[in-house]
């Protein structure tokens, strides 16, 4: 056990800090939530700055334009950018963290060349079309069909909860290519240009009152077979190849933000019960920050503990508890959202226990993979 970072890591941190100090003043103010054209531009600009500064694709291998950074450097990157209040990954999320790594692992030379440089430069925004009205937690039950017709697939079906769908250029889509195979065997992974004829995108208004995600209707959409990544019907495996890019750093920015918000919230109250609960929330976040570091320590050694599975579940629940506390502390000052980060966050974080694996599913996974208990029906 050792808390101190190596000299090389400290120098990575110092250089990054200097770069942030120099770069952040040039970043214009964040556009409003519903100004999607400006939001896309703002997120893309930040990605471009990262690219120019040598920080794009931190965990991508160097041969694909990434930085080949160590897990600890990645941790430091997220920590420092969050502390400096730099823009969050935003609309670049799917491209840089999911689709890009998938292409690196499974894409053809042509697919890599067509997309990887664009993703790194912020020139291409991706979305993820996995979930469907009938396939959420049970994703393998998805029904959007891709029927082969010559060199094309013809797509028919509906996707839902597609974040950033309204501004994406390209989507990673899971479709059913063999309706007769067992659920997770007949699925393929496609690169879907979002401007193809037959694609209709309808934003959905969230509980926050904004439109963060969309429904995507697919009617006779023709996609060349060459847009498939991996073998036909092997899409379920392809979606999981990104796991090795998971280094337990997924919640670093959120945790650093949460610790800051705890400090801010301490100024809101002198009520002893509120303060005690605030101390409790802080303990949860700080413990998770240590668990994140422990996770990264394990990844650096090429081992993996249960931490990765635990952080998402524990963080999202702690964050909701904290949000609840903030509303009680604000009392009637919390009755408007504008200018009230804590209230806005309370609403945004309602989704944390649902998106990307609901808490119940996370508990199933922990009890089965970590404890070896009998599996749920699938």
């Amino acid at each position, binding site marked *: *056990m*050792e*808390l*101190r*970072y*190596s000299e090389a*890591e400290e120098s990575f941190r110092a250089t990054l800090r200097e770069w942030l100090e120099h770069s952040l003043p040039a970043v214009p103010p964040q556009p409003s939530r519903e100004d999607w054209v400006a939001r896309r531009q703002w997120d893309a600009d930040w990605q471009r700055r990262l690219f120019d500064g040598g920080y794009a694709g931190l965990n991508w291998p160097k041969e694909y334009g990434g930085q080949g950074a160590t897990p*600890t450097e990645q*941790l430091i990157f997220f920590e420092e950018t969050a502390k400096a209040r730099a823009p969050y990954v935003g609309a670049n999320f799917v491209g840089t963290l999911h689709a890009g790594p998938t292409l690196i692992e499974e894409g053809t030379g042509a697919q890599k060349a067509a997309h990887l440089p664009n993703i790194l430069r912020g020139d291409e925004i991706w979305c993820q079309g996995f979930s469907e009205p009938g396939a959420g937690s049970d994703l393998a039950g998805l029904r959007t069909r891709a029927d082969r017709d010559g060199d094309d697939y013809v797509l028919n079906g509906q996707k839902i909860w597609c974040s950033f769908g309204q501004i994406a250029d390209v989507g990673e889509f899971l479709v059913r290519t063999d309706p007769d195979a067992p659920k997770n065997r007949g699925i393929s992974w496609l690169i879907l240009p979002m401007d193809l004829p037959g694609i209709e995108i309808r934003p959905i208004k969230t509980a926050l009152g904004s439109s963060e995600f969309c429904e995507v209707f697919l009617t006779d959409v023709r996609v060349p077979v060459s847009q498939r990544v991996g073998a036909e019907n092997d899409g379920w495996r392809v979606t999981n190849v990104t796991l090795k890019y998971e280094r337990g750093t997924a919640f670093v920015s959120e945790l650093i933000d949460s610790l800051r918000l*705890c*400090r801010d919230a*301490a*100024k809101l109250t002198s009520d*002893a019960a509120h*303060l*005690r*609960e*605030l*101390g*409790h929330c*802080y*303990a*949860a976040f*700080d*413990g*998770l920050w*240590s*668990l*994140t*570091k*422990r996770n*990264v*320590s*394990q990844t*650096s*050694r090429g*081992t993996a*503990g*249960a*931490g990765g599975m*635990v952080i998402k*579940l*524990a963080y999202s629940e702690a964050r909701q508890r904290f949000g609840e506390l903030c509303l009680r502390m604000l009392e009637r000052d919390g009755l408007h959202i504008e200018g009230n980060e804590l209230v806005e966050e309370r609403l945004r974080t309602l989704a944390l226990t649902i998106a990307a694996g609901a808490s*119940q599913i*996370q*508990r*199933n996974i*922990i*009890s*089965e993979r*970590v*404890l*070896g*208990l*009998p599996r*749920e029906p699938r």
Partner: protein
Amino acid sequence: MDLELSDDQVSLRDGIQALLAGRFDMERVRTGFDRAMYDELAEAGVFSLISDGFVWADAAIVFEQLGEFCVPGPLVTCAITGECASHVETSTVAIEHVSTVDYVYQIADTVTRAPASSFSGVASDWPLDPLTPILKVGSGVFGESVGDAELAQAFRRRGTVLTAAFQLGMAQRLTTMTVDYAKSRVQFDRPIGSFQAIKHLLADMVVRNEVARAAVYAAAAHLDEPDESGLDRTIAVAKVLAGEAAVVNGKTATQVHGGMGYTWEVDVHLYLKRAWLLETHFGSAESRCDDLAAILSA
């Protein structure tokens, strides 16, 4: 930066685990703390780790194992004072292990102590933790000054970390016991561990352990650093999370064991009762949350 055990620390953990598994099974543990047990642990080096060249992170690993085995006795006090001693903090209404130890320390604004033989009172014939005898005293006179506020702070920091490590070990062992039971106990023709309501309770035990372990290791490693900034915060976090893990896992373990969980025979209650006892050492989860809030507001 590395919050995982080093190879040496893995050997240390395995060594103490083997020693405890060999000599401190539950049958022995249930006989309680006595001088022979103290001598045996002292000989194994449990109370002299720092003077023997180990660091606090190592000590935490050892105390985590002592917690796994629910070893009775004022082990943390012995390790921080270097004496066969128990301690009180502010209140002296109940003193632990008086008939076995040499000294009772008071770790408050300063550190004072008195020979254990100087305390008189009524021995509880029904202590909350059956393995922790309690002497009910009206008041005590801690006549001898041992150290100033600085020593009191050092004792409190070290004591908190080792107690948290012990609580962590208890939380972990409660989980193992309960998972084993859930896999073997059959109702409605299947193991109760296949019911989602049970699986989710067990998953939450894992969550508490993982977060508490990271917090305890971070606090222990921080004790070894010369830079004390943030140290009290890290230590408070460890105590909150490990204390909760032990107590809540104890309650969950009772529930999952069904009627067996409410028996004297099954070990669960011994862990739960010790967990409650240790919440009165070096600050309960609640008081440590208050400390954290005070640090945040400062």
